[in-house]
């Protein structure tokens, strides 16, 4: 992109495989590739391995049983032990607390097609003053960026005390912090259950779980659920815990307004019809914590930064297009985990392992074809399960009927529903990108990670058409994948 595009790569350490993300997919990818003989660098934004799914208290300052609130902890413990061993033997260079802010593509004709990842610290001083590299180059790059809670704006959702369900869970799993005393958990999908039971086990009074969908949706593909018996056991455990803690599980029910002045005081519940329209009011409940989640949004910034193709998945998420061996459409780029389609940790581990094996094989390591096939089978089974889950827990089609004109859609730039609608009705913006340019939702600090999905849905709904991948792409495509200082930019890939 400048006259000296390759200069920095001359100084950035080069690896056979660079893995981004140390959650279920990234950990599995890194240890698998390293054990197959590759020199691996593992870059992660977290303090310690595990990602969001296996978030746990600081390992240097343990807080009792670190596996508290986790399901397949032994899988993580195994991966972590392998990681430690490979780091000791210098097969893996592990770089925690770092975010990739820029992906430098290979020059035309480069073989292998190596990408350089430019790094910034997750917070000021996060590198502890070490001389960690500002960039690393991978002959192959495996992107395992994971995802985060998908959100829908609802009246009052910007009040303190309203949190993403995953954020409430992160406080519990990472810090043993209970974010409120009297909580309600709402949205859609099975992830609401561990959040509710986790809060209750930590001593909070959980007044209800509000599921906008209905679990009868699962009966549409019972074989998919039967194919993954572990998930059935998990669901049963949560159901038992809900009963034990006397937490009502209210289906086809949503929080349609949140009230309070400087902090949340109460929520208004509504019964929904199949399409998500409000059928009738279902009362007001006093709470001091609201945990919201509507499935997950995969982090796609790094995937789009490589120029790899994306598509709209069954749950309306933008995801990477990958082949049966986790290859993206750009040579040298592999993707595993939620970024190929939201499907949970077991699937992510299988995809990570497969990506690790394939990158090793693509670099001429001997890899068992039997292992590859076994992983592909497991992936297919879990994909089917994920599809059944997404079908049973859709975002309510008429969710936007709950909004008031003044409801905040973009929390960063404080753009109201009225302003988003005005961009279309008064200014003629017919797609999400034009709405973003005119009304500015998604232009703030988070760059649309929180409101991007909702803004895309609103733009499509105003036009009376279905959501398309093009509605979702403007949010996923960022010039920089993480905020950086002007100083870093000046020293960055352009002028080294």
């Amino acid at each position, binding site marked *: 992109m400048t006259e000296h595009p390759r200069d920095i790569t001359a100084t950035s350490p080069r690896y056979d495989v660079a893995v981004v993300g140390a959650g279920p997919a990234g950990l599995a990818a890194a240890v698998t590739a390293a054990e197959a003989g590759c020199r691996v660098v593992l870059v992660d934004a977290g303090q310690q391995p595990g990602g969001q799914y296996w978030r746990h208290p*600081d390992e240097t300052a343990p807080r009792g049983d670190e596996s508290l609130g986790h399901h397949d902890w032994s899988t993580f413990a195994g991966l972590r032990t392998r990681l430690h061993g490979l780091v000791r033997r210098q097969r893996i260079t592990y770089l925690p607390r770092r975010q990739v802010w820029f992906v430098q593509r290979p020059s035309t004709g480069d073989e292998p097609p190596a990408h350089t990842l430019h790094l910034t610290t997750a917070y000021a001083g996060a590198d502890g003053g070490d001389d960690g590299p500002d960039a690393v180059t991978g002959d192959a790059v495996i992107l395992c960026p994971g995802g985060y809670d998908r959100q829908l704006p609802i009246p009052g959702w910007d009040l303190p005390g309203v949190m993403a369900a995953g954020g409430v*869970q992160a406080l519990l799993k990472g810090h043993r912090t209970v974010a409120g005393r009297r909580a309600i958990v709402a949205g859609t999908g099975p992830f609401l259950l561990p959040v509710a039971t986790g809060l209750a086990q930590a001593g909070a009074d959980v007044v209800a779980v509000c599921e906008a969908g209905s679990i009868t949706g699962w009966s549409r593909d019972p074989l998919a659920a039967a194919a993954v018996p572990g998930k059935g056991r998990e669901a049963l455990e949560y159901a038992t815990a809900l009963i034990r803690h006397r937490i009502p599980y209210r289906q086809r029910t949503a929080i349609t307004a949140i009230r309070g002045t400087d902090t949340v005081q109460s929520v208004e519940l509504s019964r929904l019809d199949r399409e998500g329209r409000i059928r009738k009011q279902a009362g007001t409940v006093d709470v001091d914590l609201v945990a919201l989640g509507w499935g997950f949004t995969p982090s796609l910034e790094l995937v789009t930064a490589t120029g790899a193709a994306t598509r709209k998945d069954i749950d309306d998420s933008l995801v990477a297009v990958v082949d049966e061996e986790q290859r993206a459409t750009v040579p040298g780029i592999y993707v595993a985990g939620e970024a190929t389609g939201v499907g949970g940790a077991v699937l992510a581990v299988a995809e990570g392992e497969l990506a690790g094996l394939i990158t090793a094989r693509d670099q001429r390591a001997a890899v068992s074809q039997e292992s590859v096939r076994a992983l592909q089978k497991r992936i297919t089974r879990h994909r089917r399960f994920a599809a059944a889950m997404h079908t049973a827990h859709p975002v309510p089609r008429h969710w936007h009927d709950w909004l008031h004109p003044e409801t905040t859609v973009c929390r960063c730039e404080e753009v109201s529903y009225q302003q988003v609608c005005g961009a279309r009705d008064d200014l003629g913006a017919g797609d999400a990108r034009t709405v973003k340019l005119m009304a500015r939702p998604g232009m703030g600090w988070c760059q649309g990670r929180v409101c991007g999905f909702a803004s895309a849905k609103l733009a499509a709904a105003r036009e009376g058409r279905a959501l398309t991948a093009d509605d979702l792409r403007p949010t996923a495509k960022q010039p920089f994948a993480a905020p950086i200082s002007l100083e870093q930019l000046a020293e960055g890939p352009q002028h080294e």
Partner: protein
Amino acid sequence: MSPAQQHGTPDAATTEPERFEVVFDGRPLPAIAGQSVGSVLTDAGIRSWRTTRTQLRPRGLFCGIGVCYECLITVDGEPNQRACLVPARPGMALSSTVLGNGPFDTAGETDD
């Protein structure tokens, strides 16, 4: 091995983590080693530490995992740090950002 490559190995679960204080707008708050700033504030019952720049609405933790940037806070004079990610350290000075100064223009504003 560079410090970047070092990472914690679980000690015996019986070890008690270190306890210390941080200071939020002049007020001491108890903290435990390994806690994030956001976790320390939440444990103290503090839910917001900045206001938005146009409507002056209170903001605190939302996504809790570094995605939404709602929990920005000034840490030891360094503005715009994500409270959900920054680990608490003994004696750390945390300051709220209110009075309409948004997250983009807090440079040099450390009033404690």
